[in-house]
């Protein structure tokens, strides 16, 4: 029987030739969620009945010979940071607990129109702030490979759901690595598109100039398929680009001739886990064997990326999260004395520690007298980082690097050390600062069986190149076919 552990291409074939139905597939996902999600914690809301009804309706249309959308009945899990009409959208925060949006995010509309079955909302770090999903107000997400380790974050729920076969595809968002890093921790493919490639309308903002929505999948083809659905020009997002969307899947099988892979030696220094180092070197060897040229590149300002990011992102966050004041929607303290006290108590009670930390950092950085030294300076550094990449991409086609310095880390190991947690974002955040597309694909395992990802970056709007390069590696390796032991148990 087909299960969501199969690739999306296989499942689409089976749906088309009648070997399975969307209803059976959806039920299988719901069964896996029921069996394993207490342990994993991937979902904040499972939309069982509406999902089954939607699946049945798609099956009927298929039987009647009606044309179906690209996703044609595939279950898709959606990170709880995207507005879904009629389904709760909490951002894993007590602040939005119980809030049901009256509208769909643009990408959610796109999913519905593509005949996806929206199976539920996935766990995340509160308001997407974090790298382990431990900052969720509703409990952490564990990587299905090792239940004592974090699924990564902030899109940990979406990554874990795909890894555990709870959904063949999932949508996440990436502000500083929040798609790529959990993809690495969970052994799946995750893609952060170019800033402006996918509409942010309905994506609850963390840091508006860095946030981008992207796909999770067990394999590269699934990521290409889901990106075709998500990517679009949306006039409701002023930062969304009016660029044609290529048929990403059509290019996948075609290897890139004379591919030039850039390596930044600074990425392979102290702090990088030995297993990760070896896995990434091995992946680079795969490209070498396929005839690619490997070039050293310089990213002289990369060492400022973490500092720059932790000024820009909290500054924007402090502004974006100001609206949660207990007045119009969301949590309001039960006990307050006057308006200002209501603001203070509502926010004090309903936001978690990391969110408060970032709001305070950002508020400070934007304050009169500090703006020039912090926010403005960070924006200048950001431009220098962008220029580094522009320069690098004159001599290489993609840049390869680790995704994170380590495989999935034990739960609780960095919770009390936010600075170390921030520093672990070092490989991923530059892509957000520069607006570049980045992808994480399975590239091996640590000695103790935790997955390790390889990151590829490409110039703006070169998602096709990124996917082609990833597919070249995927064809040569079997990493993406491994399944976590827990998921295999139930099938």
């Amino acid at each position, binding site marked *: 029987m087909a299960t969501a552990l199969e690739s999306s291409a296989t499942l689409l074939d089976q749906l088309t030739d009648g070997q399975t139905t969307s209803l059976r597939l959806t039920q299988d996902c719901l069964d896996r969620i029921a069996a394993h999600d207490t342990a994993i914690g991937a979902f904040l809301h499972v939309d069982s009945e509406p999902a089954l009804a939607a699946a049945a309706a798609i099956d009927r249309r298929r039987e009647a010979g009606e044309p179906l959308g690209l996703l044609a009945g595939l279950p898709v899990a959606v990170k709880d940071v995207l507005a879904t009409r009629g389904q709760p959208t909490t951002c894993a925060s007590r602040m*939005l607990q119980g809030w049901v949006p*009256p509208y769909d995010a643009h990408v959610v509309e796109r999913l519905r129109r593509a005949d996806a079955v929206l199976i539920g909302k996935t766990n995340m770090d509160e308001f997407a702030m974090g790298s382990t999903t431990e900052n969720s107000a509703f409990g952490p997400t564990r990587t299905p490979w090792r239940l004592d380790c974090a699924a990564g974050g902030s899109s940990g729920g979406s990554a874990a759901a795909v890894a555990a076969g709870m959904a063949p595809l999932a949508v996440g968002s990436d502000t500083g690595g929040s798609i790529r890093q959990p993809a690495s921790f969970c052994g799946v493919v995750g893609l952060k598109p170019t800033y402006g490639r996918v509409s942010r*309308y309905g994506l609850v*903002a963390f840091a508006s100039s860095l946030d981008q929505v992207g796909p999770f999948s067990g394999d590269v083809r699934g990521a290409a398929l889901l990106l075709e659905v998500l990517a679009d020009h949306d006039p409701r*997002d002023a*930062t969304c680009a009016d660029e044609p969307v290529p048929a990403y899947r059509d290019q996948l099988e075609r290897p890139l001739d004379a591919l030039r892979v850039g390596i930044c030696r600074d990425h392979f220094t102290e702090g990088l886990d030995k297993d990760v180092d070896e896995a990434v070197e091995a992946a680079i060897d795969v490209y070498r064997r396929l005839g690619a040229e490997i070039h050293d590149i310089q990213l002289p300002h990369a060492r400022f990326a973490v500092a720059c990011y932790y000024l820009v992102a909290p500054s924007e966050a402090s502004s974006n999260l*100001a609206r949660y004041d207990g007045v119009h929607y969301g949590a309001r303290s039960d006990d307050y004395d006057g308006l200002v006290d209501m603001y203070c108590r509502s926010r004090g009670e309903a936001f978690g520690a990391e969110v408060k930390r970032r709001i305070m950092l950002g*508020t400070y950085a934007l304050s009169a007298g500090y*703006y020039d030294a912090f926010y403005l300076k960070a924006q200048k550094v950001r431009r220098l980082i962008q220029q580094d990449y522009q320069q690098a991409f004159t001599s290489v086609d993609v840049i390869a690097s680790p995704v994170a310095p380590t495989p999935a880390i034990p739960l609780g190991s960095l919770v009390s050390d936010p600075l170390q947690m921030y520093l672990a974002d070092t490989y991923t955040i530059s892509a957000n600062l520069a607006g570049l597309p980045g992808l994480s694909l399975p590239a091996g395992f640590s000695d103790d069986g935790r997955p390790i990802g390889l990151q590829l970056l490409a110039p703006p709007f070169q998602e096709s190149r990124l996917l082609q390069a990833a597919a070249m590696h995927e064809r040569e390796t079997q990493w993406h076919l491994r399944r976590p032991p827990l998921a295999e148990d139930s099938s």
Partner: protein
Amino acid sequence: MTAPCSPATTIIGLEVHVQLLTETKIFCGCLNRFNPEEPNVQTCPVCLGLPGALPVMNRRALELAIRAGLALSGTIAGTTKWDRKQYYYPDLPKAYQISQFDLPFCDGGWMDVDDADDGDETQASRIRLIRVHLEEDAGKNLHDETQRGRDSRIDLNRAGTPLLEIVSEPDLRSAAQSRRYLEEMRLLMVYLGVSDCNMQEGSLRCDANINLELVNDDGVAIRTPIVEIKNLNSFRGVEAALEYEIGRQRQEFAECGGVYADSEKQTRGWDADRGVTFAQRGKEDAADYRYFPDPDLVPVQIAAEWIEELRTGLCELPAARRQRLVDDLKLSRYDASVIIDQGRDLADYFEAVAQRCGDPKWAANWVTQDVLRELNDRGQAIGDFAIDADGLAAILARIASGDLTTRSAREVFTALLDDDPEGEQVTVEARIDEIISDRGLATIADSGALEPLIDAVIERNPQAAADFRGGKQAAIGKLIGEVMREAKGADPQSVRAALIERLSS
């Protein structure tokens, strides 16, 4: 303590807020309409500030703003951008207002304001502007006025209305001049069609910054601390609040001798009922708005060609038109102002009448007196007035040709006004002819036609005739009156002449 001696200089700058007349709001597709009866119906995720919603600039709002900026002689920026002004208030659902901080769409500019409103010797003062920028309006908090501690309510229909902020240099020198500045600003914005500037509905609002330069007992010039008076929403309010504040600052100066414990800018409110300003907040909680560029909106490039197209498309502005009525049509400055200040429709009406009847001065007399009086009495706008420009021009043409006396013309005017608008439709010329003939208003110019009437009146009033002949000049008044009553179209001068001639023969 002696009162501070003059001379004192009053220093006033105004921040004027003008809601723009767009169909939809500035960053979403919601209707932009004053609608207090149905709160929160003109809203969507964007103007409600719901999580995930994003703003998109309404280009029409920028177009109206640029037209206003050009009419104020400002410099339109080639690139402008949006910034977030951050503060907490329940009527501001995002907890920031999208506004413009360091790159407003319009820099500088000025407006000329007449110094006094009578006579032809009027001088104008040039009030310079610092900048004009565009922003979104907030919603409205509705507090329980009964003081019974009921919940406050919030109406977000207004949230996201495009709002122009026009900031003047501190060039205004009196409360009265400030009022005239605001009136001229309103006239200009309405002329341009960018706003209806309805102060009752809040589409024109004003904050005033004011301080005084006074000389203390030692002869040293000292400036009083600047006071910002918030939310002035009537012309009278602006003038009265500033007058009050001038007095208050003088008195405070007298009391402290120009030595202030706190010289920081202060914010005061205006209590229109009590006629006083009152302290709102001092420097302790001076807001830090933490402005930064809104990452949800992209910088706006304003093409030079577009600016030129909008500049070319501007109508003749009120100040220029006022001057033209003086220079070309030879109206008094006073008449020109009365006509122009009534707005574009009345000025158009006047010019049509002036052109068709060929006598601008006559047209001005009739428009500023008869027409305006009737409009005021009837509470009408010129567009609803029963006598259109052709009608009034036809009446005036008959006075000029001698076919009607002024007095008869007024009767025709009144009769036309009283016509049933649903009645028989004839041309205004024909209708005027009808009234003249129905009421016998045709001018009786030749004395031949008057003679039998005069004879009859003298015969009926032998005593008055005898008195006049006996040297009592005043007695002729009664006779003239009777003749005039009988001969409606007669010219009183001719009647007097004919009577004197007849009585003297």
